[in-house]
Protein backbone atom coordinates (compact mmCIF):
# COMPACT_ATOMS: atom_id res chain seq x y z
CA UNK A 1 0.00 0.00 0.00
CA UNK A 2 1.39 3.41 -0.98
CA UNK A 3 2.00 6.00 1.69
CA UNK A 4 -0.79 8.53 1.92
CA UNK A 5 -0.22 11.86 0.24
CA UNK A 6 -0.50 14.76 2.58
CA UNK A 7 -1.24 17.94 0.72
CA UNK A 8 -2.16 21.37 1.88
CA UNK A 9 -5.18 23.30 0.87
CA UNK A 10 -6.31 21.50 -2.22
CA UNK A 11 -9.68 21.52 -0.61
CA UNK A 12 -11.05 25.02 -0.32
CA UNK A 13 -11.29 24.91 3.45
CA UNK A 14 -7.96 23.20 4.09
CA UNK A 15 -9.42 19.85 5.01
CA UNK A 16 -6.29 17.99 4.01
CA UNK A 17 -2.95 18.13 5.79
CA UNK A 18 0.31 19.72 4.67
CA UNK A 19 2.48 18.02 2.07
CA UNK A 20 5.41 15.80 2.91
CA UNK A 21 5.57 14.27 -0.53
CA UNK A 22 5.81 15.36 -4.13
CA UNK A 23 3.94 18.52 -4.96
CA UNK A 24 2.45 16.89 -8.03
CA UNK A 25 -1.25 17.45 -8.52
CA UNK A 26 -3.67 15.47 -6.50
CA UNK A 27 -5.66 12.80 -8.25
CA UNK A 28 -8.97 11.30 -7.35
CA UNK A 29 -8.59 8.09 -5.38
CA UNK A 30 -5.13 8.65 -3.87
CA UNK A 31 -4.70 7.98 -0.19
CA UNK A 32 -4.67 11.16 1.88
CA UNK A 33 -4.53 12.20 5.49
CA UNK A 34 -7.08 14.66 6.76
CA UNK A 35 -5.89 17.85 8.36
CA UNK A 36 -7.06 17.98 11.95
CA UNK A 37 -5.79 19.85 14.97
CA UNK A 38 -4.63 18.93 18.45
CA UNK A 39 -5.12 21.00 21.57
CA UNK A 40 -1.93 21.43 23.62
CA UNK A 41 -3.97 21.98 26.78
CA UNK A 42 -6.59 19.20 26.82
CA UNK A 43 -5.25 16.94 24.07
CA UNK A 44 -8.47 16.99 22.11
CA UNK A 45 -8.24 16.23 18.38
CA UNK A 46 -10.64 18.13 16.13
CA UNK A 47 -11.63 17.69 12.52
CA UNK A 48 -11.75 19.91 10.51
CA UNK A 49 -8.72 21.61 12.06
CA UNK A 50 -9.80 24.27 14.52
CA UNK A 51 -7.79 27.39 15.36
CA UNK A 52 -9.26 27.16 18.83
CA UNK A 53 -9.98 23.79 20.47
CA UNK A 54 -13.72 23.06 20.30
CA UNK A 55 -13.51 21.60 23.81
CA UNK A 56 -11.57 24.16 25.81
CA UNK A 57 -10.93 27.08 23.38
CA UNK A 58 -7.13 26.96 23.71
CA UNK A 59 -5.07 27.66 20.58
CA UNK A 60 -4.67 24.34 18.75
CA UNK A 61 -1.98 23.12 16.32
CA UNK A 62 -2.60 21.40 12.98
CA UNK A 63 -2.07 17.65 12.94
CA UNK A 64 -2.38 15.08 10.17
CA UNK A 65 -4.91 12.40 11.05
CA UNK A 66 -4.51 8.68 10.32
CA UNK A 67 -5.54 7.63 6.80
CA UNK A 68 -7.06 4.33 7.91
CA UNK A 69 -10.07 3.64 10.04
CA UNK A 70 -13.12 1.52 10.65
CA UNK A 71 -16.65 2.13 9.45
CA UNK A 72 -18.98 2.62 12.42
CA UNK A 73 -22.12 3.75 10.59
CA UNK A 74 -23.45 4.58 7.14
CA UNK A 75 -26.49 5.55 5.13
CA UNK A 76 -27.30 6.53 1.58
CA UNK A 77 -28.99 9.67 0.37
CA UNK A 78 -31.44 8.78 -2.34
CA UNK A 79 -32.63 12.25 -3.34
CA UNK A 80 -30.50 15.23 -4.45
CA UNK A 81 -29.59 17.59 -1.62
CA UNK A 82 -30.84 21.14 -2.27
CA UNK A 83 -27.34 22.59 -1.79
CA UNK A 84 -25.54 19.97 -3.90
CA UNK A 85 -27.98 19.43 -6.71
CA UNK A 86 -25.31 17.99 -9.00
CA UNK A 87 -24.48 15.13 -6.62
CA UNK A 88 -25.32 11.88 -8.36
CA UNK A 89 -27.80 9.99 -6.18
CA UNK A 90 -27.92 7.68 -4.41
CA UNK A 91 -24.63 8.30 -2.67
CA UNK A 92 -23.33 6.92 0.60
CA UNK A 93 -22.17 8.75 3.70
CA UNK A 94 -20.37 7.10 6.57
CA UNK A 95 -18.92 7.64 10.01
CA UNK A 96 -15.36 6.35 10.39
CA UNK A 97 -13.39 5.83 13.56
CA UNK A 98 -9.81 6.72 12.69
CA UNK A 99 -7.15 4.22 13.63
CA UNK A 100 -5.82 4.62 17.14
CA UNK A 101 -7.93 7.71 17.80
CA UNK A 102 -10.89 8.53 19.98
CA UNK A 103 -12.27 10.33 16.95
CA UNK A 104 -15.03 9.61 14.46
CA UNK A 105 -15.31 11.57 11.22
CA UNK A 106 -18.32 11.94 8.92
CA UNK A 107 -17.70 11.84 5.18
CA UNK A 108 -18.67 10.58 1.76
CA UNK A 109 -18.32 6.84 1.46
CA UNK A 110 -17.55 4.80 -1.65
CA UNK A 111 -19.41 1.57 -2.28
CA UNK A 112 -23.07 0.71 -2.19
CA UNK A 113 -25.43 0.13 0.68
CA UNK A 114 -25.79 -3.61 0.06
CA UNK A 115 -22.08 -4.36 0.23
CA UNK A 116 -21.15 -2.13 3.18
CA UNK A 117 -20.95 -3.50 6.71
CA UNK A 118 -20.28 -1.85 10.04
CA UNK A 119 -16.72 -2.70 11.02
CA UNK A 120 -15.39 -2.56 7.44
CA UNK A 121 -11.82 -1.24 7.26
CA UNK A 122 -11.67 1.93 5.16
CA UNK A 123 -9.02 4.37 3.95
CA UNK A 124 -9.27 8.10 3.34
CA UNK A 125 -8.93 9.08 -0.31
CA UNK A 126 -9.21 12.24 -2.39
CA UNK A 127 -12.61 12.69 -3.98
CA UNK A 128 -12.90 14.34 -7.37
CA UNK A 129 -14.42 17.81 -7.31
CA UNK A 130 -18.11 18.25 -6.63
CA UNK A 131 -19.13 21.68 -7.92
CA UNK A 132 -15.39 22.58 -8.14
CA UNK A 133 -14.77 21.57 -4.51
CA UNK A 134 -12.25 18.81 -3.87
CA UNK A 135 -13.08 16.76 -0.86
CA UNK A 136 -12.30 13.47 0.85
CA UNK A 137 -14.10 10.17 0.87
CA UNK A 138 -13.74 6.88 2.70
CA UNK A 139 -13.06 3.80 0.57
CA UNK A 140 -13.59 0.26 1.85
CA UNK A 141 -10.40 -1.82 1.65
CA UNK A 142 -11.85 -5.27 2.07
CA UNK A 143 -13.41 -7.04 4.96
CA UNK A 144 -11.48 -7.99 8.05
CA UNK A 145 -13.42 -11.25 7.91
CA UNK A 146 -14.57 -11.73 4.32
CA UNK A 147 -16.42 -14.95 5.17
CA UNK A 148 -18.77 -13.00 7.38
CA UNK A 149 -21.95 -11.75 5.74
Amino acid at each position, binding site marked *: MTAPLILDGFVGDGLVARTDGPEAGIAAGVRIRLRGSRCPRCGRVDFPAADLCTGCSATASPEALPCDGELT*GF*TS*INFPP*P*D*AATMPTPYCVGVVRLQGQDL*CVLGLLEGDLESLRIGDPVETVAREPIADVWTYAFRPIGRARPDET
Partner: protein
Amino acid sequence: VDRVVIAGVGIHPFGRFPVGYRQMGAIAARQALEDAGIELADVDVTLLANVNAEMGKASNTVGLLGRPGVPLIAVENACASSGSALFLGSSLIQSGAASVVLCVGVEKQPKGFIAASGYDAWQLQTGIGLNPIYFALGAQRLLETTEATMEDLADVSVKNHRQARHNPNAMYRQEVTREEVLESRPVCPPLTLLMLCAPNEGAAAAVLMDSERAHRLGVGPPVYVRSVGLASLAADDFFLPNVSFRPDRLTSLTSRAAGLAYEDAGIGPADLDLVECQDTDSASELIAYSELGLCDAGKEAALLRSGDTAAGGRIPVNMSGGLLSKGEPLGASALGQVHELVQQLRGRADSRQVEGAAVGIGHVMGAGGSCAVTVLSR
Protein backbone atom coordinates in the same frame (compact mmCIF):
# COMPACT_ATOMS: atom_id res chain seq x y z
CA VAL B 1 -41.16 29.83 41.40
CA ASP B 2 -44.31 29.36 39.36
CA ARG B 3 -44.11 32.98 38.43
CA VAL B 4 -44.88 32.54 34.73
CA VAL B 5 -48.37 31.63 33.57
CA ILE B 6 -49.41 30.76 30.04
CA ALA B 7 -52.49 32.92 29.90
CA GLY B 8 -53.48 32.11 26.36
CA VAL B 9 -52.51 30.07 23.33
CA GLY B 10 -53.31 30.22 19.64
CA ILE B 11 -52.50 28.23 16.54
CA HIS B 12 -52.72 28.41 12.78
CA PRO B 13 -52.99 24.83 11.48
CA PHE B 14 -49.80 23.18 10.21
CA GLY B 15 -49.76 22.27 6.51
CA ARG B 16 -49.38 24.21 3.26
CA PHE B 17 -51.38 27.35 2.65
CA PRO B 18 -51.82 30.10 0.07
CA VAL B 19 -51.41 32.84 2.71
CA GLY B 20 -48.15 34.47 3.76
CA TYR B 21 -46.27 33.88 6.97
CA ARG B 22 -47.29 37.27 8.35
CA GLN B 23 -50.97 36.42 8.12
CA MET B 24 -50.46 32.98 9.68
CA GLY B 25 -48.46 34.47 12.54
CA ALA B 26 -51.02 37.20 13.10
CA ILE B 27 -53.87 34.66 13.20
CA ALA B 28 -52.12 32.60 15.87
CA ALA B 29 -51.15 35.71 17.85
CA ARG B 30 -54.65 37.13 17.78
CA GLN B 31 -56.09 33.82 18.96
CA ALA B 32 -53.62 33.72 21.85
CA LEU B 33 -54.49 37.29 22.89
CA GLU B 34 -58.22 36.48 22.77
CA ASP B 35 -57.64 33.28 24.73
CA ALA B 36 -55.86 35.32 27.40
CA GLY B 37 -58.57 37.96 27.35
CA ILE B 38 -56.15 40.80 26.62
CA GLU B 39 -55.32 43.13 23.75
CA LEU B 40 -52.08 43.78 21.94
CA ALA B 41 -51.77 47.05 23.88
CA ASP B 42 -51.45 45.02 27.10
CA VAL B 43 -48.31 43.25 25.84
CA ASP B 44 -44.95 44.51 27.14
CA VAL B 45 -42.68 42.61 24.75
CA THR B 46 -43.33 40.48 21.67
CA LEU B 47 -40.91 37.74 20.59
CA LEU B 48 -41.30 36.38 17.06
CA ALA B 49 -39.66 33.02 16.39
CA ASN B 50 -38.93 32.34 12.73
CA VAL B 51 -36.12 31.01 10.56
CA ASN B 52 -36.73 31.93 6.94
CA ALA B 53 -38.51 35.25 6.68
CA GLU B 54 -37.07 38.66 5.91
CA MET B 55 -35.52 41.41 7.99
CA GLY B 56 -38.14 43.15 10.12
CA LYS B 57 -40.21 40.00 10.43
CA ALA B 58 -41.44 40.65 13.99
CA SER B 59 -42.81 44.06 13.08
CA ASN B 60 -44.17 42.85 9.76
CA THR B 61 -46.14 40.07 11.45
CA VAL B 62 -47.40 41.58 14.69
CA GLY B 63 -47.96 44.94 12.95
CA LEU B 64 -50.97 43.37 11.24
CA LEU B 65 -52.68 43.39 14.65
CA GLY B 66 -51.80 46.98 15.53
CA ARG B 67 -48.86 49.21 16.37
CA PRO B 68 -48.75 49.98 20.08
CA GLY B 69 -45.03 50.72 19.78
CA VAL B 70 -43.72 48.25 22.37
CA PRO B 71 -40.54 46.16 21.92
CA LEU B 72 -40.61 43.52 19.18
CA ILE B 73 -37.72 41.07 18.84
CA ALA B 74 -37.15 38.28 16.32
CA VAL B 75 -35.63 35.06 17.67
CA GLU B 76 -33.90 32.56 15.40
CA ASN B 77 -32.55 29.26 16.69
CA ALA B 78 -33.54 26.92 13.87
CA CYS B 79 -36.08 24.30 14.96
CA ALA B 80 -35.59 25.43 18.56
CA SER B 81 -36.55 29.03 17.72
CA SER B 82 -39.84 29.17 19.57
CA GLY B 83 -38.41 27.15 22.46
CA SER B 84 -35.79 29.86 22.66
CA ALA B 85 -38.51 32.55 22.58
CA LEU B 86 -40.17 30.79 25.53
CA PHE B 87 -36.83 30.77 27.35
CA LEU B 88 -36.41 34.50 26.82
CA GLY B 89 -40.04 35.37 27.52
CA SER B 90 -40.07 33.42 30.78
CA SER B 91 -36.81 35.04 31.81
CA LEU B 92 -38.18 38.53 31.11
CA ILE B 93 -41.15 37.85 33.38
CA GLN B 94 -39.12 36.17 36.12
CA SER B 95 -36.72 39.10 36.15
CA GLY B 96 -39.55 41.61 36.40
CA ALA B 97 -38.57 43.26 33.13
CA ALA B 98 -41.99 42.48 31.66
CA SER B 99 -45.32 41.25 32.97
CA VAL B 100 -46.87 40.19 29.67
CA VAL B 101 -44.87 38.64 26.80
CA LEU B 102 -46.38 37.51 23.52
CA CYS B 103 -44.45 34.65 21.90
CA VAL B 104 -45.27 33.92 18.27
CA GLY B 105 -43.70 31.21 16.14
CA VAL B 106 -44.29 31.02 12.40
CA GLU B 107 -42.78 29.46 9.32
CA LYS B 108 -43.30 28.89 5.63
CA GLN B 109 -40.83 26.11 4.91
CA PRO B 110 -40.77 24.50 1.44
CA LYS B 111 -41.26 20.74 1.21
CA GLY B 112 -38.32 18.37 1.01
CA PHE B 113 -34.82 18.42 2.49
CA ILE B 114 -34.10 21.67 4.32
CA ALA B 115 -31.46 23.75 2.53
CA ALA B 116 -28.44 25.45 4.08
CA SER B 117 -29.23 24.56 7.67
CA GLY B 118 -26.20 25.71 9.59
CA TYR B 119 -23.38 23.96 7.73
CA ASP B 120 -20.13 25.28 6.30
CA ALA B 121 -20.11 25.80 2.53
CA TRP B 122 -17.89 22.77 1.87
CA GLN B 123 -20.26 20.49 3.79
CA LEU B 124 -23.21 21.71 1.73
CA GLN B 125 -21.40 21.61 -1.62
CA THR B 126 -20.09 18.08 -1.11
CA GLY B 127 -23.40 16.59 0.01
CA ILE B 128 -22.58 15.84 3.66
CA GLY B 129 -24.27 18.96 5.03
CA LEU B 130 -27.74 17.46 5.07
CA ASN B 131 -29.87 16.92 8.18
CA PRO B 132 -31.30 13.46 7.31
CA ILE B 133 -27.77 12.03 7.25
CA TYR B 134 -27.59 12.57 11.00
CA PHE B 135 -31.09 11.19 11.56
CA ALA B 136 -30.34 8.07 9.49
CA LEU B 137 -27.04 7.44 11.27
CA GLY B 138 -28.75 7.89 14.64
CA ALA B 139 -31.43 5.42 13.57
CA GLN B 140 -28.87 2.87 12.39
CA ARG B 141 -26.98 3.20 15.67
CA LEU B 142 -30.21 2.62 17.61
CA LEU B 143 -30.90 -0.51 15.55
CA GLU B 144 -27.33 -1.77 15.97
CA THR B 145 -26.88 -1.11 19.67
CA THR B 146 -30.34 -1.77 21.14
CA GLU B 147 -33.11 -4.28 20.61
CA ALA B 148 -35.04 -1.77 18.47
CA THR B 149 -36.09 -3.11 15.06
CA MET B 150 -37.36 -1.66 11.78
CA GLU B 151 -40.83 -2.61 12.98
CA ASP B 152 -40.36 -0.44 16.06
CA LEU B 153 -39.34 2.48 13.85
CA ALA B 154 -42.49 1.92 11.81
CA ASP B 155 -44.64 1.64 14.92
CA VAL B 156 -43.60 5.08 16.18
CA SER B 157 -45.01 6.52 12.97
CA VAL B 158 -48.15 4.36 13.24
CA LYS B 159 -48.70 5.54 16.83
CA ASN B 160 -48.26 9.23 16.07
CA HIS B 161 -50.44 9.15 12.97
CA ARG B 162 -53.16 7.38 14.94
CA GLN B 163 -52.98 10.06 17.63
CA ALA B 164 -53.22 12.81 15.00
CA ARG B 165 -56.61 11.59 13.78
CA HIS B 166 -58.33 13.89 16.24
CA ASN B 167 -56.02 16.88 15.88
CA PRO B 168 -57.59 19.39 13.49
CA ASN B 169 -54.30 21.30 13.33
CA ALA B 170 -52.24 18.39 12.00
CA MET B 171 -51.24 18.13 8.34
CA TYR B 172 -51.67 14.35 8.13
CA ARG B 173 -54.70 12.91 9.93
CA GLN B 174 -54.88 9.54 8.20
CA GLU B 175 -53.81 6.39 9.98
CA VAL B 176 -50.93 4.47 8.43
CA THR B 177 -50.08 0.80 8.84
CA ARG B 178 -46.73 -0.70 9.77
CA GLU B 179 -46.47 -2.17 6.26
CA GLU B 180 -47.17 1.19 4.62
CA VAL B 181 -44.42 2.81 6.68
CA LEU B 182 -41.89 0.06 5.95
CA GLU B 183 -42.74 0.00 2.25
CA SER B 184 -42.72 3.75 1.73
CA ARG B 185 -39.78 5.16 -0.24
CA PRO B 186 -36.37 4.71 1.38
CA VAL B 187 -35.12 8.29 1.75
CA CYS B 188 -31.99 7.64 3.81
CA PRO B 189 -31.90 4.03 5.00
CA PRO B 190 -32.94 2.78 7.45
CA LEU B 191 -35.42 5.67 7.40
CA THR B 192 -38.32 5.62 4.96
CA LEU B 193 -40.50 8.52 3.85
CA LEU B 194 -43.21 7.83 6.46
CA MET B 195 -40.60 7.67 9.24
CA LEU B 196 -39.58 11.28 8.51
CA CYS B 197 -41.47 14.46 9.28
CA ALA B 198 -42.30 16.94 6.54
CA PRO B 199 -41.04 20.51 6.88
CA ASN B 200 -44.13 22.68 6.30
CA GLU B 201 -46.00 25.86 7.25
CA GLY B 202 -47.93 27.06 10.24
CA ALA B 203 -47.91 29.23 13.32
CA ALA B 204 -48.50 29.02 17.05
CA ALA B 205 -48.50 31.59 19.84
CA ALA B 206 -48.63 31.90 23.60
CA VAL B 207 -49.20 34.80 25.99
CA LEU B 208 -46.87 34.55 28.99
CA MET B 209 -47.97 36.50 32.02
CA ASP B 210 -46.74 37.27 35.49
CA SER B 211 -48.77 34.99 37.77
CA GLU B 212 -49.97 37.81 40.04
CA ARG B 213 -51.43 39.63 37.09
CA ALA B 214 -52.88 36.41 35.69
CA HIS B 215 -54.62 35.67 38.97
CA ARG B 216 -55.89 39.24 39.16
CA LEU B 217 -57.31 38.92 35.63
CA GLY B 218 -58.83 35.58 36.58
CA VAL B 219 -57.03 33.77 33.79
CA GLY B 220 -57.88 30.15 34.09
CA PRO B 221 -57.40 27.39 34.47
CA PRO B 222 -53.80 28.56 34.86
CA VAL B 223 -50.94 26.63 33.28
CA TYR B 224 -47.46 27.42 34.58
CA VAL B 225 -44.12 27.49 32.81
CA ARG B 226 -42.09 25.65 35.42
CA SER B 227 -38.85 25.91 33.48
CA VAL B 228 -37.25 26.10 30.05
CA GLY B 229 -33.94 24.27 29.69
CA LEU B 230 -31.95 25.56 26.73
CA ALA B 231 -28.70 23.90 25.65
CA SER B 232 -26.48 24.27 22.63
CA LEU B 233 -24.19 21.97 20.70
CA ALA B 234 -21.13 20.56 22.48
CA ALA B 235 -18.04 19.28 20.71
CA ASP B 236 -18.89 15.60 21.33
CA ASP B 237 -22.59 15.62 20.46
CA PHE B 238 -23.34 13.58 17.37
CA PHE B 239 -25.66 16.20 15.97
CA LEU B 240 -25.69 18.50 12.98
CA PRO B 241 -23.51 20.27 11.91
CA ASN B 242 -20.64 18.45 13.73
CA VAL B 243 -18.30 16.58 11.33
CA SER B 244 -16.42 14.75 14.06
CA PHE B 245 -16.90 13.63 17.64
CA ARG B 246 -15.15 11.47 20.22
CA PRO B 247 -17.08 8.18 20.32
CA ASP B 248 -15.75 7.21 23.75
CA ARG B 249 -17.01 10.46 25.25
CA LEU B 250 -20.23 10.96 23.33
CA THR B 251 -22.57 13.50 24.92
CA SER B 252 -26.26 14.27 24.38
CA LEU B 253 -27.72 17.66 23.58
CA THR B 254 -31.19 16.56 24.68
CA SER B 255 -29.95 15.14 27.99
CA ARG B 256 -28.26 18.43 28.83
CA ALA B 257 -31.36 20.52 28.07
CA ALA B 258 -33.62 18.07 29.92
CA GLY B 259 -31.28 18.06 32.92
CA LEU B 260 -31.43 21.86 33.11
CA ALA B 261 -35.21 21.86 32.74
CA TYR B 262 -35.84 19.17 35.37
CA GLU B 263 -33.46 20.75 37.86
CA ASP B 264 -34.93 24.20 37.43
CA ALA B 265 -38.49 22.87 37.77
CA GLY B 266 -37.60 20.64 40.71
CA ILE B 267 -39.16 17.61 39.05
CA GLY B 268 -37.98 14.44 37.35
CA PRO B 269 -39.16 12.36 34.44
CA ALA B 270 -41.24 10.19 36.81
CA ASP B 271 -43.45 13.20 37.47
CA LEU B 272 -44.49 13.62 33.84
CA ASP B 273 -47.97 12.82 32.57
CA LEU B 274 -47.28 13.49 28.89
CA VAL B 275 -44.52 14.49 26.50
CA GLU B 276 -44.39 16.27 23.16
CA CYS B 277 -40.98 15.49 21.69
CA GLN B 278 -39.00 16.21 18.53
CA ASP B 279 -39.98 13.25 16.37
CA THR B 280 -38.13 14.59 13.33
CA ASP B 281 -37.98 10.91 12.49
CA SER B 282 -39.15 7.74 14.20
CA ALA B 283 -35.75 6.94 15.68
CA SER B 284 -35.41 10.43 17.13
CA GLU B 285 -38.54 9.83 19.20
CA LEU B 286 -37.15 6.55 20.54
CA ILE B 287 -33.77 8.13 21.30
CA ALA B 288 -35.59 10.97 23.09
CA TYR B 289 -37.27 8.41 25.39
CA SER B 290 -33.95 7.60 27.01
CA GLU B 291 -32.36 11.03 26.67
CA LEU B 292 -35.36 12.67 28.34
CA GLY B 293 -35.13 10.06 31.10
CA LEU B 294 -38.39 8.22 30.34
CA CYS B 295 -36.45 4.94 30.22
CA ASP B 296 -32.91 3.63 30.52
CA ALA B 297 -30.67 3.73 27.45
CA GLY B 298 -31.27 0.59 25.41
CA LYS B 299 -34.85 0.18 26.66
CA GLU B 300 -36.46 2.54 24.14
CA ALA B 301 -38.13 -0.20 22.10
CA ALA B 302 -39.38 -1.93 25.23
CA LEU B 303 -41.02 1.31 26.36
CA LEU B 304 -42.70 1.73 22.97
CA ARG B 305 -43.87 -1.90 22.88
CA SER B 306 -45.32 -1.63 26.39
CA GLY B 307 -47.85 0.87 25.08
CA ASP B 308 -46.88 3.31 27.82
CA THR B 309 -46.12 6.07 25.30
CA ALA B 310 -49.37 5.64 23.33
CA ALA B 311 -52.79 7.12 24.05
CA GLY B 312 -54.11 5.58 27.28
CA GLY B 313 -50.59 4.62 28.39
CA ARG B 314 -48.62 5.69 31.45
CA ILE B 315 -46.87 8.60 29.71
CA PRO B 316 -48.30 9.33 26.27
CA VAL B 317 -45.80 10.85 23.83
CA ASN B 318 -46.92 13.14 21.01
CA MET B 319 -50.67 13.04 21.60
CA SER B 320 -50.86 15.86 19.04
CA GLY B 321 -49.54 13.44 16.43
CA GLY B 322 -46.04 14.83 16.73
CA LEU B 323 -44.07 16.36 13.91
CA LEU B 324 -44.51 13.10 11.97
CA SER B 325 -48.21 13.97 11.59
CA LYS B 326 -48.33 17.71 12.08
CA GLY B 327 -45.32 18.45 9.90
CA GLU B 328 -42.69 20.86 11.11
CA PRO B 329 -42.91 24.61 10.57
CA LEU B 330 -39.47 25.24 12.06
CA GLY B 331 -40.10 28.48 13.93
CA ALA B 332 -43.48 27.33 15.26
CA SER B 333 -42.77 23.80 16.42
CA ALA B 334 -42.12 24.38 20.15
CA LEU B 335 -45.10 26.73 20.48
CA GLY B 336 -47.18 24.13 18.64
CA GLN B 337 -46.20 21.65 21.35
CA VAL B 338 -47.10 24.23 24.00
CA HIS B 339 -50.51 24.67 22.36
CA GLU B 340 -51.16 20.95 22.70
CA LEU B 341 -49.78 20.75 26.26
CA VAL B 342 -51.90 23.70 27.41
CA GLN B 343 -55.08 22.10 26.01
CA GLN B 344 -54.14 18.89 27.81
CA LEU B 345 -53.29 20.56 31.13
CA ARG B 346 -56.52 22.57 30.99
CA GLY B 347 -58.42 19.31 30.44
CA ARG B 348 -59.74 20.58 27.12
CA ALA B 349 -58.06 18.28 24.63
CA ASP B 350 -61.33 16.54 23.75
CA SER B 351 -60.81 13.06 22.36
CA ARG B 352 -57.03 13.41 22.75
CA GLN B 353 -57.30 14.17 26.47
CA VAL B 354 -54.77 12.46 28.74
CA GLU B 355 -56.72 11.72 31.91
CA GLY B 356 -55.56 13.75 34.89
CA ALA B 357 -52.73 15.45 32.97
CA ALA B 358 -50.91 17.75 35.40
CA VAL B 359 -47.30 17.98 34.19
CA GLY B 360 -45.96 17.81 30.65
CA ILE B 361 -42.88 18.70 28.67
CA GLY B 362 -42.14 19.88 25.18
CA HIS B 363 -38.81 19.07 23.51
CA VAL B 364 -37.36 20.57 20.33
CA MET B 365 -33.93 20.50 18.77
CA GLY B 366 -32.63 22.28 15.74
CA ALA B 367 -29.87 22.92 13.26
CA GLY B 368 -26.79 24.52 14.66
CA GLY B 369 -27.42 22.38 17.71
CA SER B 370 -29.95 24.04 19.97
CA CYS B 371 -32.31 22.12 22.18
CA ALA B 372 -35.12 23.46 24.36
CA VAL B 373 -37.07 21.47 26.93
CA THR B 374 -40.10 23.26 28.40
CA VAL B 375 -41.80 22.01 31.57
CA LEU B 376 -45.43 23.02 31.99
CA SER B 377 -47.78 22.19 34.84
CA ARG B 378 -51.29 23.11 35.85
